[in-house]
């Protein structure tokens, strides 16, 4: 296929693909899947952190957390909009999520159980997300790449705030330090799983690489994350829950223990502690908001029928 060859050449030269450009159907499908999944993750990700807004321990932290959850809604919105440039409809995408036909990041199927979880999500989860997403700022699809630039900037900000929260707590009482350690114990391994299966078990990757959608492999990203995070953990004064974690002089990387891929697949396939609750919460909200959305649509219709004036 000549067009496809040309398309691949265009990408290989480092050019962006824009919505009006011709693209192979599989490229489009792959992007829709990945981008909408990313959008869903932002939207579901509001719940575990939202769970602590009402209990934030200071007004400043409450403000930071509300702003963060708001940013996530914003990211969801850009990403849905960017996905819509590929000729799909946001509402349909969202209904795929609610019906269990679309995935979101499995990390949000773990519960937030103490206040330090909010910090650890910023530090580790957002940290891993950034590691995954920075390469996407050079992704071949223009709207996605541009959304990623903005999102990565905000995510770094969130990561620093999370780290700062933990740093504060580590200077606090004995109980607070225990909270931080407890949160790290629970989130460390799931964060490593955020990079997806090991390269040997990973599907989609080759084609995505060729298209510039996926530039760095899961295992490479995971290794970079570990290398970047271990010194931060030392700075914090917490212990990462991996007895096999150690510096390897030869490779210049940290070696780490075996990931429990059974757990990964169990959570991905719907049996994580919060999968049911997350979707149930979003479904209930969507159902209970239906009459509001209908009213807004009806109002907009009436308004345009009446030339911009509502009846009195």
């Amino acid at each position: 296929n000549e067009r496809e060859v040309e398309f691949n050449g265009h990408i290989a030269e480092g050019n962006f693909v824009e919505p009006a450009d011709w693209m192979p159907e599989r490229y489009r499908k792959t992007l829709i899947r990945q981008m909408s999944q990313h959008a869903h993750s932002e939207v579901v990700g509001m719940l575990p952190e939202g769970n602590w807004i009402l209990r934030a321990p200071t007004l400043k932290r409450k403000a930071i957390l509300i702003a963060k959850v708001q940013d996530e809604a914003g990211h969801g919105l850009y990403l849905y909009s960017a996905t819509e440039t590929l000729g799909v409809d946001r509402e349909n995408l969202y209904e795929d999520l609610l019906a269990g036909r679309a995935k979101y990041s499995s990390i949000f199927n773990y519960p937030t159980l103490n206040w330090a979880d909010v910090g650890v999500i910023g530090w580790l989860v957002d940290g891993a997300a950034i590691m995954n997403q920075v390469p996407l700022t050079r992704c071949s699809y223009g709207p996605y790449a541009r959304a990623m630039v903005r999102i990565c900037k905000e995510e770094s900000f969130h990561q620093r705030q999370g780290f700062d929260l933990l740093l504060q707590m580590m200077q606090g009482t004995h109980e607070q330090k225990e909270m931080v350690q407890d949160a790290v114990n629970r989130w460390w391994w799931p964060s490593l799983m955020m990079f997806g299966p090991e390269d040997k078990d990973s599907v989609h990757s080759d084609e995505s690489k060729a298209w510039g959608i996926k530039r760095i492999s899961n295992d490479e990203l995971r290794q970079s994350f570990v290398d970047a995070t271990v010194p931060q953990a030392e700075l914090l004064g917490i212990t990462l829950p991996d007895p096999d974690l150690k510096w390897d002089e030869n490779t210049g990387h940290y070696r780490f223990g075996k990931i429990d891929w059974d757990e990964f697949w169990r959570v991905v396939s719907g049996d994580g502690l919060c999968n049911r609750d997350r979707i149930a919460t979003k479904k209930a909200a969507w159902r209970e908001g239906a009459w509001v959305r209908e009213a807004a649509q009806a109002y907009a219709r009436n308004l345009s029928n009446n030339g911009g004036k509502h009846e009195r």
Partner: protein
Amino acid sequence: MSPTDSDSDHNKELLCFVLRLGDSTLIASQRLAEWAGIAPTLEEDIAFANVALDLLGQARHLLSYASQLEGKGQSEDDLAFLRDVNQFYNYTIVEIPNGDFAQTCAKMYLFTTFLMLLWDHIARGADQELKAIAQKSINETKYHIEHFGGWLIRLGNGTTYSADRLKEAFEYTWPYVSEFFSPDPCISRLAPTIEIDLAVVQNLWLEEISPTFLAAKLPTIEISRFISNGKIGLHSEHLGHILAEMQFLQRAYPGGRW
């Protein structure tokens, strides 16, 4: 009465007023934040968070100022997290349950339109600190009024169902409005620093809401005989539940660094 006494008396009234505003904005923000992640649309998730943040920002300024007036070395957080129900002075309307989307919009509209009139009066008053807070808050509050008022109009002119929900929401929230205008020793003693005549404010407020009520097809109702009293520390049963959740960490882990 020595000048100092009079000063400290005046401080007391001002403190009461500043706490009233600080507590009202804080609890309104806390209630709005209950919507996090479950609003009817993503846009509304963002908008509600926006308003919650603005109100929280106002609350922080106000409570910081209150702690300064109090002069006991308490922080904004001490005031927010270590007082119990009868030491909160918010208007009751901000503590009543969110109910559905219509009820939340209704109570927020009623509260923010009233708040705006207070900011207006404060901005024309002589307390510099409070004036600065008011000036910063006026634009925010304008946006809040527009946002919630816009929803009232949309719901009132949307579907039959939404119009009914809106009417029910008003039946539930409206009685709490009378507290805005009921006799208020704290406000009446603010003069001459800040001059607020509640009879005048009531008229201004009724004028302010009237076009929106008309556009939202809401009946104009008389100010109710029902009078809630959160502003003097006599609350509904709802506030205790809000505080139990809001204050948990500070209560459970005293002396922590957050």
